[in-house]
């Protein structure tokens, strides 16, 4: 079970594509701890994700919550925070390391692309802070994921942006296409072209035995190699979001959305309602009936469907087009690497021990 604590809805940036509703509310440490207690009862381990707004605005609360959780062992916790990087300092990273808090950084690749949307209130770009944070973070946590958002007006920097992040030392790039943006024909064509460039880059990296994780490709390859994994969103089951005021929601993009509340902290999680929402989301999408990609395509992502279509029951047409383009490209890429019996490809995708081996290698070499 993962619990996403929206510690605050305040943010020190004003990113133009941000879906979160900004305000002035903070979650109290008591509310957070009560939510953790309610949601992890009977579990042997749990993931706590600190989210916002900008969660590092509540840095002290984060560490207080972690320290309290650690006192509640033997329940095993792991902790993650996603930040815009503006408040990342060596001191913060040192405290994070001491508590095994994993940090993910939002950074949109090339500074020009980053500054187009990830801006301050005055409209100025935040890339200097983000890149400074990237350097500090990767020096401290070499496997820290970098979260990159791709918009219709930054798409031409997509492939260059991913390559740039990797050249800065990032090993895990998790890119997300903003499906809510206005993707006209020209932008879509450019996106396909960028994916082809990324496929060449990925192939080249594997041939050079360079360890990279590019979620857009790796996740799709995993749906072929590990059948039945990855296609289900498990809405509300695998993770629950807690709004600053203590209201439970099934996932991050539902926070503040009327009609999708799953109870309140202190009164408990409404399990029946959560099950109903999960089952509704798991139902086959009528328009997807008979699709050969069913079971691999992420058409059941509740956040995607609710944010673009306003309902759990429909899939955005552009997402469908995106998957129809991307799956064949990714499968051809994997076929090529398999045909070459690329050792890194085989180990990374088929060997469950790869993450340990990879860390061992980094330690020993």
């Amino acid at each position: 079970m993962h619990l996403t604590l929206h510690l605050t809805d305040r943010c020190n940036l004003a990113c133009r594509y941000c879906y979160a509703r900004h305000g002035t509310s903070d979650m109290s440490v008591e509310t957070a701890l009560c939510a953790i207690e309610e949601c992890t009862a009977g579990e042997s381990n749990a993931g706590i994700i600190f989210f916002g707004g900008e969660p590092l605005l509540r840095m002290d609360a984060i560490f207080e919550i972690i320290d309290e959780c650690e006192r509640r062992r033997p329940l095993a916790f792991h902790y993650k925070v996603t930040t815009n990087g503006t408040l990342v300092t060596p001191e913060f990273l040192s405290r994070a390391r001491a508590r095994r808090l994993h940090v993910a950084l939002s950074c949109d690749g090339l500074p020009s692309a980053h500054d187009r949307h990830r801006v301050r209130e005055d409209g100025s770009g935040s890339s200097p802070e983000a890149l400074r944070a990237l350097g500090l973070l990767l020096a401290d946590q070499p496997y820290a994921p970098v979260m990159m958002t791709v918009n219709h007006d930054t798409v031409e920097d997509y492939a260059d942006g991913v390559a740039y992040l990797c050249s800065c030392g990032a090993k895990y790039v998790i890119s997300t296409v903003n499906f809510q943006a206005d993707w006209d024909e020209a932008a879509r064509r450019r996106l396909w072209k960028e994916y082809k460039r990324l496929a060449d880059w990925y192939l080249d990296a594997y041939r050079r035995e360079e360890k990279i994780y590019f979620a857009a490709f790796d996740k799709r390859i995993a749906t072929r190699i590990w059948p039945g994994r990855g296609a289900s969103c498990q809405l509300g089951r695998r993770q629950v979001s807690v709004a600053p005021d203590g209201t439970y929601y099934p996932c991050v993009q539902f926070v503040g959305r009327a009609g999708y509340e799953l109870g309140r902290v202190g009164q408990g999680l409404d399990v029946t309602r959560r099950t109903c929402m999960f089952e509704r989301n798991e139902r086959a999408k009528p328009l997807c009936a008979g699709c050969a990609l069913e079971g691999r395509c992420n058409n059941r992502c509740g956040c995607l469907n609710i944010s673009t279509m306003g309902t759990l029951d429909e899939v955005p047409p552009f997402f469908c087009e995106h998957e129809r383009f991307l799956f064949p490209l990714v499968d051809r890429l994997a076929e090529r690497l398999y045909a070459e019996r690329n050792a890194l490809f085989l180990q990374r995708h088929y060997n469950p021990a790869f993450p340990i081996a990879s860390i061992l290698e980094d330690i020993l070499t």
Partner: protein
Amino acid sequence: MMAKAMNDEVRPLRKYKTPRYPTISEIGEADLSRIPARWSGVRVLTSTLGAVAMSLKSLAMDGDAESPKTPPAPTAVVPNAAKPSAEKREAPVTDVCPLPLAALAGNGAGAFGCVAMNPPVMLPEAEALEIIEREFKKRGIDLVDAPEIDGVEAPVSELEEKQKNPHLVANILLRRKFGEEEIRKKRKWMLDLGTKDGSMMIEYISDDDERCWIRDPERDGIYSSVSGYSMRRAAELAVKGFSARTEGRPVKIGVFYDPMASAPKDVVEKRIKATGRKLDWRERSEIEDKCGRELAEQKLVAQIEHFFDYMARRNAPDAASH
């Protein structure tokens, strides 16, 4: 096919070729024992990983009800020819002899990039296979995933050569210099579609396939902002490769290819005029793309008609009335 329908609607993909890389239950021990060269200096990794990988794989699969627990034996290393997927494919066809034919319509050639004028429209494999299935169905023939065939003669990739013997790099360069033919070898090949009884099979040459059949020293390894394709030539080479199969009963193989159609300027202009307003470049390019796609579909349908005409002329009643 209307581009509008593609972009504005959720459209299930009716046909999707099973990827030619194994699932976790199909991967062989030999594959999992391959260790990246960068790990070779780290003894603890090389000595333990192979064994650990197989046991962890079994453990990981224990929770996966869909996966059989016994992995199949490893297969030979051959590009573009992973073993058939356990879920869908029938047993490999053996003892067959070829009757392959490249059905021609459209020159299947063109270029994309900075100096390419009026670039053609690519017809992706998934869409093309849907069209082929539909046209065959009209003639009463149901197509399913094709089984693997053996003995197809295809070019050996440079990488394959290098992997086999790194010292061959000099030979490759020399062959390029003196324009010698590339090395070919017989190998297994997975075709795109086939009839249930395996008597007729279909291969569609898409942009990826083209790269498998045409080893152009002038193109390989050169990074340029222009990409050229010659689908028709690749189809002809594929026919040659399939024809190399010499034993057993006949199987009809229809080789179709991406026609790479460019819409004629006058057709595009007519469409633009019909809108009754001045269009910006994006709208114009959308119309151009739509016209190109429609033309590509027409040309692919013409290839299919050509195939059936040829079959009928060759007194192949079983093919025409399958």
